[in-house]
């Protein structure tokens, strides 16, 4: 019996993938576990293994095609078996953007249609459910209610909470995909040049960066903070980590992030998304961390970072960085909307000052620079060299004014200079 090979769905929000490269050709024998093809999402690329032995009877898409998820891309089977019935292109005129089916079981909704989608859509929710949601930290914005009129009721909050718990418990298990650097395709060759195709991920980063600069009023303020306290703490941590009394190797970057979160709590207007005619104010801090990987820049988010202790946050930051580099990261966390503020640290590379680009729809991004000894008046007339860490805050002037941004930056400086754990 021939079986279809589907374009897998990686992540809840992914609607389609780009087919990368076929590793087997039609008619070739395939063993279980052989890699059939590679494919890419917005954020990562993957390889698909054959689930069975057999012959690759047909392929329905070509390299570079955009394929909707869960659509048949090929057929595996025995020689002579029919495969036409698996051909999606017969049914679809074009690769359509199918709406992704919801991962959770569809709750039973009693349709009343008394109201249609109005511009200011009111959330229908019972008083009890609202209270529960606050207590259990469940986000009701995205919930679909199963009560009368689509009302969100207690049962829905209970169900949602169980779902969130699941994702918190198994952040890594959802994805076990290997990422692989794409071999670049050479389009044209000349005497002194080669024209190479741009990998999808590059295209996406290019688009995002360009859009960010075109669709906002970004500018950067620079400040430096006295890093002595922080460096002292770091020394202590290093020693304790070496002794074994501390389980987590908390870095300077971790300490800076910790200070940033504290500052964000005092300046909630920075912990926002700007949407043109409205702003989304977050009650929690979801901290994005810029991570350089082989395949390009990735910015995974640590959710509810404000609930974490310094060691907890250090651990989470370490986790998401590692996962991003190895390609194991949960694609949902790579969505720029998943984070409320981003930190990008180029200190290790010696950068003294730079203008990081905002991850829209976030309102701001902090660039962390290297530590430089600068002269400072220690007491009247007496100067000494003090290690100062550079802080470059890029913010969207559409959302924030210079004064606010400066005060926020000053608060980060303040938190760093007075850091205690």
């Amino acid at each position: 019996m021939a079986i279809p090979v589907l374009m897998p769905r990686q992540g809840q929000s992914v609607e389609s993938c780009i087919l990368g490269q076929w590793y087997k050709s039609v008619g070739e024998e395939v063993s279980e576990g052989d890699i059939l093809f590679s494919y890419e999402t917005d954020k990562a690329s993957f390889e698909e293994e054959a689930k069975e032995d057999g012959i690759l009877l047909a392929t329905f898409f070509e390299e570079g095609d955009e394929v909707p998820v869960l659509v048949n891309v090929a057929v595996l089977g025995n020689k002579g078996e029919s495969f036409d019935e698996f051909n999606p292109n017969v049914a679809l005129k074009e690769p359509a953007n199918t709406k992704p089916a919801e991962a959770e079981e569809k709750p039973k909704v009693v349709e009343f249609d008394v109201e249609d989608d109005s511009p200011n859509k009111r959330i229908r929710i019972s008083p009890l459910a609202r209270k529960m949601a606050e207590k259990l930290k469940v986000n009701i914005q995205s919930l679909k209610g199963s009560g009368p009129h689509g009302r969100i009721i207690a049962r829905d909050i209970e169900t949602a909470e169980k779902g969130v718990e699941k994702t918190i418990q198994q952040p890594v298990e959802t994805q076990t995909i290997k990422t692989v650097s794409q071999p670049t395709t050479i389009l044209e060759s000349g005497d002194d040049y080669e024209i190479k195709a741009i990998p999808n991920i590059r295209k996406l980063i290019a688009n995002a960066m360009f859009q960010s600069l075109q669709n906002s009023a970004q500018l950067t303020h620079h400040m430096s903070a006295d890093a002595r306290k922080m460096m002292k703490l770091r020394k202590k941590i290093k020693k304790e980590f070496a002794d074994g009394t501390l389980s987590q190797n908390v870095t300077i970057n971790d300490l800076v992030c910790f200070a940033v979160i504290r500052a964000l709590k005092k300046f909630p207007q920075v912990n926002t998304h700007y949407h043109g005619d409205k702003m989304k104010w977050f009650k929690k801090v979801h901290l994005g961390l810029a991570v350089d990987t082989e395949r390009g820049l990735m910015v995974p988010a640590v959710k509810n970072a404000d609930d974490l202790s310094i060691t907890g946050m250090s651990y989470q930051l370490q986790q998401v960085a590692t996962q991003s580099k190895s390609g194991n990261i949960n694609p949902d966390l790579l969505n720029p909307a998943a984070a409320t503020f981003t930190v990008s640290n180029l200190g290790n590379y010696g950068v003294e000052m730079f203008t990081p680009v905002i991850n829209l729809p976030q309102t701001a991004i902090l660039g962390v620079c290297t530590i430089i000894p600068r002269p400072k008046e220690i007491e009247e007339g007496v100067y000494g060299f003090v290690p100062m860490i550079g802080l470059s805050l890029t913010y969207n002037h559409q959302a924030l004014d210079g004064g606010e941004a400066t005060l926020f930056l000053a608060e980060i400086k303040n938190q760093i200079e007075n850091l205690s754990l």
Partner: protein
Amino acid sequence: MPKIQYINPDEVRKPGFLKFSPIPVNQYNKTVEEEKKNFSNEDFVRIYRDMVIIREFETMLNLIKTRNEYNGVEYNHPGPAHLSIGQEAAAVGMAYTLGVEDFIFGSHRSHGEILAKGLSAIDKLNDKQLIEIMDNHFDGITLAPVKAGHTGTTKELAVKFLIYGTLAEVFARETGFNKGLGGSMHAFFTPFGVYPNNAIVGGSGDISVGAALYKKVNRKKGIIVANIGDASMACGPVWEGLTFATMDQFTELWEGDMKGGLPLIVNIMNNQYGMGGQTCGETMGYDIAARIGAGINADQMHAERVDGYNPLAVIDAYKRKRKIIEEKRGPVLLDVLTYRYSGHSPSDASSYRSKEEVEAWEKQDSIIWFGKELVKAGVATEAELEVIKAETTEIITFSIKLAIDDEVSPIMDMKKHPNLIGDMMFSNQSVDKMEDRPVEVNHPMEENPRVKQLKTKERFMFNENGKPFSKIKTYGLRDGLFEAIVDRFYKDPTLIAYGEENRDWGGAFAVYRGLTEALPYNRLFNSPISEASIIGTAIGYAMCGGRVIPEIMYADFLGRAGDEVFNQLPKWQAMSGNVLKMPVVIRISIGSKYGAQHSQDWTALAAHIPGLKVVFPVTPYDAKGLMNSALQGTDPIIFFESQRLYDIGEQFHKGGVPEGYYELPIGEPDVKREGSDVTILTIGATLYRALDAAKTLEEKYNLSAEVIDARSLVPFNYEPVIESIKKTGRIIISGDASARGSFLRDLASNITELAFDYLDAPPVVVGSRNWITPAHELEDYFFPQPEWFIDAIHERILPLEGHVSTSDFSEAEQLDRNARGI
């Protein structure tokens, strides 16, 4: 229908004629001179003085109402004042022979009667008695203003006390006879034998009969006089009162010293008008009101028309009629002819009568005439009479000055005590027996056949294996009621019970079976089919201090006693300033299977009227406990029972219904089934259908329902219900009443306000349809059914997986039904 009264067809079918005797009209013709052997000079002068006092009192009120001024004293009285100027002779004559143990009941126009009876009582009481009465009334609050600076005799002080107490009451002062809560139309003073007047025309018509019943049944001295107007002879309650008062059974079935008629004089103060309608000639047909007596019984109620413009004629009539009553041949109907110069009320422009007519009567004014007669007979001089007039003006002026002084006679301070009136609505007392004396019973309680039979019944519905006992062995709800009632009959000597088919038949639903053997007629008897007088007499009985259980056979008959239940019963405790208690427990049975006029749940009507407590137990344990509490209290209780449940056994209380005495607090709901996912609160028999629904919810939908039995409607403690909602977040409220305007909606509204933050859905009301109750065969479409609960949960609270509704609980349907008024 006692078996001993054999209806012989031979007798009854014989031919014959009904004969009537002549009814005397204005037959009194003695002169003052001729009456000198019956009255001393002081007596005559006192009669004159009493009339003058009344005249001046009423005139003062008339001037205050029309000119805001009397004798230099300025005041504005916005309240009612129905004046009886011209009717003084009738009032004084009526009260003259009456003693303090004789009680009068009045109408809205009874100032004259209050003063006449008061003055008569003052004349008969000695100083010691008077001082005690005045000191004890509200701890001397009414006495204090008049006592200050009084020089003179105790009797003179008492007269001031009487006038001031009445006037302060009219002016709504806290120092008035009823704390200002009764006002002009409900003022009274029981220590002088003045019982409540009634703003409802004819209201005293059946209440007074109850008072007469009290006198008779409890072997008390004294007679009852009902002062009602001629126009009230058109009212149903008055006729029902007459019917009740003249029942044959008093003379033919009641035994021993109980045999004989009620000690009642129905005194028609016939001023020949009913507001503006002229009774004789326009709105009534009797021509002379005394004629009514001839239509009531063979004795023609010893009816007479008496010339009420001559006080001596009225006194003479009372002397003769009292003899008849003392011979146990009452009741008596007196048609006392009189006339009022003043309008119905001060706003009355008298457009309904001519000036000539009023002047013709004024020419024959009884005070002027009587004064002239006294002078003619040498009883008093003109100068002496003038002195009386002057003294009266003085005393009235003195009284009004006091009564309008805000410091001496303050109005109730509602700012300081905002709940003052609320605290007076119920007496909330616990009284074993209204009087301490031996009970009148035919045998010891243990020997009663039903009591003996109950000892063999199973007091819990199920045996150890969970199987129900046979119906005949099961102790049912009716047995719980019986045990509480028989216990009280053997405790409280004043307790009586009556209604339709109460004796012999044992009550239409066999609650009273066994009581006939235990009690004499005067404690348990059949009333006529007259719901108004059943309740009205109970009110009068309770006013005099007796405890009573009147029965309304079907809730649907409540309308027939509408005024009594809604206007009289709930109001007297507060209106009397808590002088009166109202230990009346009305048993009302809610039917089913009997169609549109015999199956309605009207709990909402009773719950709406302030002043009534309302209970509705549906298990034997609750029924006995609540009936004990009801009969231990002193407040009016509307005690609902369901005809579906008289033989149901006790399913909830461990060990079954206790044999001894126990009370359940009125106002406490009861969790009959514990649960955690949804609360169902029920009123009445619906409880059992809710329990069925709870079983289905558990078995089919894995939903655990908590079922709460309201048990009481007024008062009602919400706290256990709110605690339940904190657990479940969801509630359905159900009962057999038509949903619109029902108490179910009152519960839902209060619950929404009090438990809003705990609710996962709005409270949903599942009541009966707003239709006529259909025949038995169609009842399941009218009354809440177990499936309705599940449908309601599915549609409005929590969609249930796999459930398909059979009835329409959608919002669209609710909107539509309300828009159509059904």
